[in-house]
């Protein structure tokens, strides 16, 4: 198992390398000129060319990439074009805020989705089931920035229960975490319900019932446990998506995390900043996938990694 994990971690290297080349080229393929955005609004084309040259943007793309790559190998992730300072310290300072938000949103979505999904599967076509199905459909269909705005208007403006923006304590996390977790919650709920329904029709569940086990044991030990593999897969994917979701959500809630930094980087075509962010996001995404694969083996004893 250790060898397997090690192998998977080593596989990260080529994956990240490919991602970095792809993203680096993509940033340059997007129209937009970082020098223009840095220049005062009335700057002439000549001045903008001068700024571009100062930034080294006039060099061919592969040269710029290799320059950046060699820097990263030495722990220098480059200087942000718009902020004019090294990107790594900024990224690391913001990382905990984003992990915390993403973590809480996953706890929220899993905490709500699995119990409701189980209930709705065991009481198929009941009132609860209908509510949860409509709810998950809504959760999936509503764009999350809009959900965020509605929550702000309701809980911050009208009811004044919770703060609308910032990060000065736990209460500041509640609205963004719920917003970020809504669509994940809906997905997990649907998968839990459908997998449970599938498993519940299996012969061994009928056997378990017929040998007189309590419904509780049947549901939690025999049904849910077997449905869990699919649910965990979805949770893992959702955790990855949550990281991406922070880019939008952090902006709505003025939450000081990586997502806002990524957004600002993109708005300024700030390549080192975008690259730094994406490398962190990609690494986390890969590690989450690895964790999910390892958890499979724990949940389902039939799965083994040599």
């Amino acid at each position, binding site marked *: *198992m250790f060898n397997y*994990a090690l192998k998977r971690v080593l596989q990260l290297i080529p994956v990240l390398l490919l991602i970095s080349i792809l993203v680096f080229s993509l940033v340059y393929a997007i*129209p*937009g*000129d970082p020098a*223009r*955005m*840095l*220049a*005062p*609004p*009335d*700057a*002439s*084309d*000549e*001045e903008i*060319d*001068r*700024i571009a040259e*100062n930034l080294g943007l006039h060099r061919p793309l592969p040269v710029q990439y290799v320059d950046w790559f060699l820097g990263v190998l030495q722990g220098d992730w480059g200087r*942000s074009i718009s*902020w*004019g*300072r090294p990107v790594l310290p*900024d990224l690391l*300072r*913001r990382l*905990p*805020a*984003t*992990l*915390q938000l993403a*973590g809480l949103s996953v706890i929220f979505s899993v905490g709500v989705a699995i119990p409701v999904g189980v209930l709705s599967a065991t009481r198929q076509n009941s009132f609860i089931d209908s509510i949860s199905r409509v709810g998950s459909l809504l959760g999936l269909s509503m764009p999350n920035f809009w959900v965020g*705005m509605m929550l*702000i*208007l309701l809980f*911050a*403006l009208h009811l*004044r229960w919770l703060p*609308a*923006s*910032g*990060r*000065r*304590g736990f209460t*500041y996390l509640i609205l963004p975490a719920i917003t970020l977790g809504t669509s994940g919650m809906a997905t997990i709920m649907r998968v839990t319900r459908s997998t449970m329904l599938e498993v519940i029709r299996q012969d061994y569940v009928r056997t378990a019932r017929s040998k007189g086990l309590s419904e509780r044991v049947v549901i939690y030990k025999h049904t849910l446990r077997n449905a869990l593999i699919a649910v965990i897969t979805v949770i893992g994917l959702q955790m990855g998506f949550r990281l991406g979701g922070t880019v939008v959500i952090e*902006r*709505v*809630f*003025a939450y*000081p995390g990586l997502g806002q*930094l990524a*957004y*600002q980087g993109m708005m300024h075509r700030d390549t080192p900043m975008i690259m730094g962010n994406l490398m962190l996001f990609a690494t986390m995404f890969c590690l989450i996938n690895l*964790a999910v694969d*390892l*958890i499979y*083996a*724990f949940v389902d004893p039939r799965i083994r990694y040599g």
Partner: protein
Amino acid sequence: MRVTKWMWLAILMSLFLLFFTVGCGAPADPPVEPDEEVDEEEEEEPDEEPVAEPTRDQIVYIGVSSEPHRLDPRFGAGTVAARNVQTLVHDSLISWDDETLEIEYVLAEEVNVIDPQTYEVKLREGVLFHNGEELTTADVEYTYNTLRDPDAAASNFSHYAPIVEIEVHDDYSLTFHLEAPNMPFLYRLRADIVSKSYSEEHATDDNPYGDDYTNMNPLGTGPFKFVEWRTGEEIILEANDDYWQGRPKLDRVIFRPIPDATTRTVELQTGEIHINEEIDPVQVAITEADENVVVSRRSQMGFQSMGIHVNLGEPTDDVRVRQAIAHMMPREDIIDYVMHGLGEPAYGPIPPGHWAHEPNVPRFEYDPARAQELLADAGYPDGFEAELYVIEDSVRVQLCEIIQEELATIGIDVNINVLEGGAFWDQMRTGESQMFQTGWNAVTDPDDFMWRQFHSNSVPPHGANRQFYQNPEFDAIIEEALQTTEQSKRKELYSEAQKMVVEDASYVFIYHHQRALGQSPDLRDFEYSIYFNFRSLMDAYLAD
């Protein structure tokens, strides 16, 4: 085997928890100083006794739309976000009235324009930087030397490039020598002054101006001292007890970047912030209806316009065609429906209020009949097809769609090309855009409204004369104005110039835009300035 699996899970879970708790630790960080945590709730505490001095905590929170990147004014003066902080932490030699643009002295005690290329400055004595050192001409010289150094990549380099020599006479007087007569330079004396010793202290071989440090830790002579910048969260300033104009009444000013316009509005309505830097035009009406918010509008000192190429062949090379287009501009509708009222109709470049504004320019009012007549005279009674370029921005695109509709009624079939930022400027750079929508903002000297947009030498890539307006008579007037010291004489020349550019209609002026700002009714004696942002907070206070 099962034990190993448990172990792995335990390791994974604890790693996750570790990350999570590391994250949770952050907001619990002790504040730098206890009074920073003070919340709005305390404001509701009953006053013990009415006294003349305000009793509530004098801490103002400002919700700003974007976070600054570089706080050192030598390098970050290009953005509103950075100017917000800089104008409070620093002082400049001069400033000016926001509406008339008449010059006022700040750190300068006197500015003598010896001739339009020689500016003598006498410095106020006894002004202290926040580190206790006295401001001298060495600091002024150092600041301007950075600004004019082509290798420094400072903000607004072109403004300071004309300086050929800075002659220091003594600790309190110096003279700027320019390469050529340049009256707008008077307005360039607004650059915020930084401390030479402080910057040099933090300079390294890789970073000769020390801006790696000063961008994060600015130091000036201004009414507020920089305390702390928690990126993404807040920038904290506190009153400068030794300020030469007297200590500000406010104890602290805290900037909170809140990028979303709706969130910013809500935060002002709930009292979490005292100033909302910018209200989205769509939300102005709703915000004005809230009695807990005072909405003010400030002219942006600029204009939005549509450029028409005069040198790209038929039909726009004919002035009658361009004037016809100008007559089809529905200014009021655009202001009402696109800008939600945040604007004033523009008939010329320089906004009303500015000392050089000329009210008697030819006014091309909305007049379809006259437009049709002009088109027929020019030989296009049935109209023609035209290309219009616009940057991808919902307001600007809407504006162009209205223009398109209007022009269609007189037979001009406009094809709107919506281009994303970089692509748009690449298109502008070609100098071959038949019609294009652009605007100017926070402009100061009348020359800044003229030279870069209309002088013959300003065609791309040297300037922004993307419509290739070339009129030797006009050039001669603005060249003379550049060398004229006397303001009344300059005003006459620019009046003439304004009439010319309007008449020739290489630009159709649409509106002078305004910015809406929301503030708490408790905040007194504060007025936002387009050029000096929150500077008047030095006199403001929170009423009980």
